């Protein structure tokens, strides 16, 4: 997901020093656009990445860039509020030539990112459709998916056995399980410190068989089933089975491995750390289904490599993106699996990856293939914020779901009208 890692929690002191040093340098040099420098011939290209939490990723992307012969690529590693930084940079002439980003619908509509459809000629079917769809607007592709990130429900097998609870297969079972697993010191479930409004997003809607925006661009949750399912989420809060106010948020597995909670919703990226600490004492599940028309729900997301239209070398930038994210499958595999833990965006690569062949990782790949969905491109920030506010009031305050959803439906309709005009 876009906000998969909280950058604050994983910055070591040394990194912080390096970053402040780099910032000071940037400030001293005036506008450092990341162009210039680097090896190789040809034009100079600037490329931005957000700060990945896993050690070695930064060195790896710099190694890939150095291996490119047709342009001098200067990689910038950007800690902090990355999406805000790219959004601000794209307003100016100093935007990076190549960057990882949504890109968002408004960036596409504003003409800030270049059409990359041509780069996927012949291999478009090899990219997972769930992550390619949100990069596609009116048939054109504006971002090449780099990896697939996904989120799952992790549970402690021993704690479930002790409480005599089966791994939950429906939302009602999950609510009961969370209640049964809650003791004085251990909570049943951790959905983030806000009670789940931030991370769950459209996941419960999918579990009810609905979606935020339908394929033909209409509101997809103007339905009594949505209110019914979202209303159930308040029970976690009312039962006191949610872990709230933990020092780390949902994206970090610390609360789960430290035994503050028996179940936690977190990302695939947390799997190696959980495996190292808990060994075999855990399992993974998709978000469970609710109602007869529902199904298990697995959110997927990915940054895409995008090209800024402000770039002075759009063709060179496109050629570089094609080389790195379409042609060099060896680098793509290395990037997905050697540092953090992601599913390669290319179906052919995901199939042959040994690390994804067994155990919980294999489950995750299966869930993603069977139930994976990504937030639709037309589900804009404004609609998402309205929905998230409503979800927060439903979960935390027990607000009436149908009244809350009515305002979200109105906001979403207005937004869909705006973006279709």
């Amino acid at each position, binding site marked *: 997901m876009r906000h998969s890692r909280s950058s604050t929690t994983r910055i070591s002191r040394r990194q912080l020093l390096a970053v402040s040093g780099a910032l000071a340098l940037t400030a001293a040099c005036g506008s450092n656009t990341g162009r210039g420098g680097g090896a190789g011939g040809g034009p100079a290209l600037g490329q931005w990445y957000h700060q990945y939490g896993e050690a070695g990723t930064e060195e790896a992307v710099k190694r890939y860039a150095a291996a490119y012969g047709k342009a001098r690529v200067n990689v910038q590693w950007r800690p902090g509020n990355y999406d805000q930084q790219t959004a601000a940079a794209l*307003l100016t002439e100093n935007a990076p030539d190549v960057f990882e980003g949504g890109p968002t619908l408004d960036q596409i509509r504003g003409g800030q990112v270049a059409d990359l459809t041509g780069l996927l000629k012949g291999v478009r079917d090899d990219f997972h459709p769930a992550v390619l769809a949100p990069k596609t607007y009116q048939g054109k592709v504006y971002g090449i998916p780099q990896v697939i990130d996904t989120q799952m429900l992790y549970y402690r097998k021993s704690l479930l056995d002790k409480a005599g609870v089966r791994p939950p297969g429906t939302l009602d079972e999950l609510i009961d399980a969370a209640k049964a697993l809650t003791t004085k010191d251990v909570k049943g479930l951790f959905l983030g410190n806000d*009670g789940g409004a931030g991370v769950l997003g459209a996941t419960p809607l999918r579990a009810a068989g609905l979606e935020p925006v339908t394929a033909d661009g209409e509101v997809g949750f103007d339905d009594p089933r949505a209110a019914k399912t979202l209303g159930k989420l308040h029970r976690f809060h009312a039962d006191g089975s949610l872990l709230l106010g933990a020092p780390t948020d949902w994206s970090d597995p610390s609360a789960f491995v430290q035994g503050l909670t028996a179940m936690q919703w977190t990302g695939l990226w947390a799997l190696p750390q959980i495996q190292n600490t808990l060994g075999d004492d855990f399992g993974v599940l998709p978000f469970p289904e609710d109602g007869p028309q529902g199904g298990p729900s697995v959110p997927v997301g990915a940054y895409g490599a995008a090209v800024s239209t402000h770039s002075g070398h759009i063709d060179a930038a496109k050629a570089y993106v094609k080389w790195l994210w379409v042609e060099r499958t060896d680098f793509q595999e290395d990037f997905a699996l050697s540092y953090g833990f992601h599913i390669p965006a290319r179906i052919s690569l995901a199939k042959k990856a040994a690390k994804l062949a067994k155990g919980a990782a294999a489950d995750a790949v299966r869930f993603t293939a069977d139930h994976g969905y990504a937030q639709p491109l037309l589900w804009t920030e404004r609609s998402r*914020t309205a929905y998230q506010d409503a979800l927060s009031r439903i979960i935390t305050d027990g607000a009436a779901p149908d009244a809350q959803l009515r305002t979200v439906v109105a906001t979403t309709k207005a937004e869909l009208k705006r973006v279709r005009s």
Partner: protein
Amino acid sequence: MWFWAFVGPFAAGLALFTYVPLVWSVWLSFFDAHNTVTPTEFVGLDNYTEILGDPSFTSSLTTFAVFSLFIVPATYALSLALALMVHRLRFAQAFFRSVFFLPTACSYVVAAIIWKLSVFNGVRYGLANTVLGWFGGSDIAWLSTTSPPWYWLVIVTVRLWLQAGFYMVILLAGLQRIPATLYEAAAVDGARPGWQVFRHITFPQLRATSVAVVLLLVVNAFQAFDEFYNLLSTAGGYPPYARPPLVYLYYAALGQGQNLGLGSAGAVILALIIAVVTVIQARWFGLGRRED
């Protein structure tokens, strides 16, 4: 010539970093400025009607009004109480003055993170929950509980801790300016030390200082952002409660929203509110009126 040599850089900086963005922002507020600062589509007052019709924005204005009404008197009262106590100390006055002033040197961001992660975290080893545990209470998720709204306790305590010392020093300076002869005269006239002296001598004599302190406090409350944002925002966004207008505008204009026209309209509305409140307040207190 020398006038411009000295004033020029400052005036240029003021124009470039304050007036140009201000005018630009007003201009943007009349345009559809999604993801651009050079928009072309004039929309008139649409942004204004849209943001005033948005319940999240209007509720954030209410939140901030209630917050100001509470935090300004509370900080003033606490600072004054500290100043009066430190003023009466006969020994170690400098020590206590420094101790109470020290939190001012701490950044809002750092303080908010300490409050969030160690003092008021929601798990059993948080400081507040440990203390509760001694008395047999169960853990409270301070920042995630909306009924009762415990998050206000966290927000208010961090702000009081950060600000009270600073205003205490200003009030202390005001206290030290009050001539001792006034107290002597009052004692001769039979005023009882304590409340009567405070009510009729100390408090009226502090008027000029108090006006300055209250004005600063109001401006500070208007600008609330740092501790709110750092206490309550998560990677997924900001909860719908305790959301000051600046936090709302930050997400609308600078976040993924990038609706700079709407954000500018909100900023203009907020600026107008601040201007009106400040003018009313200045009139009320008679700021700048010659003392008689």
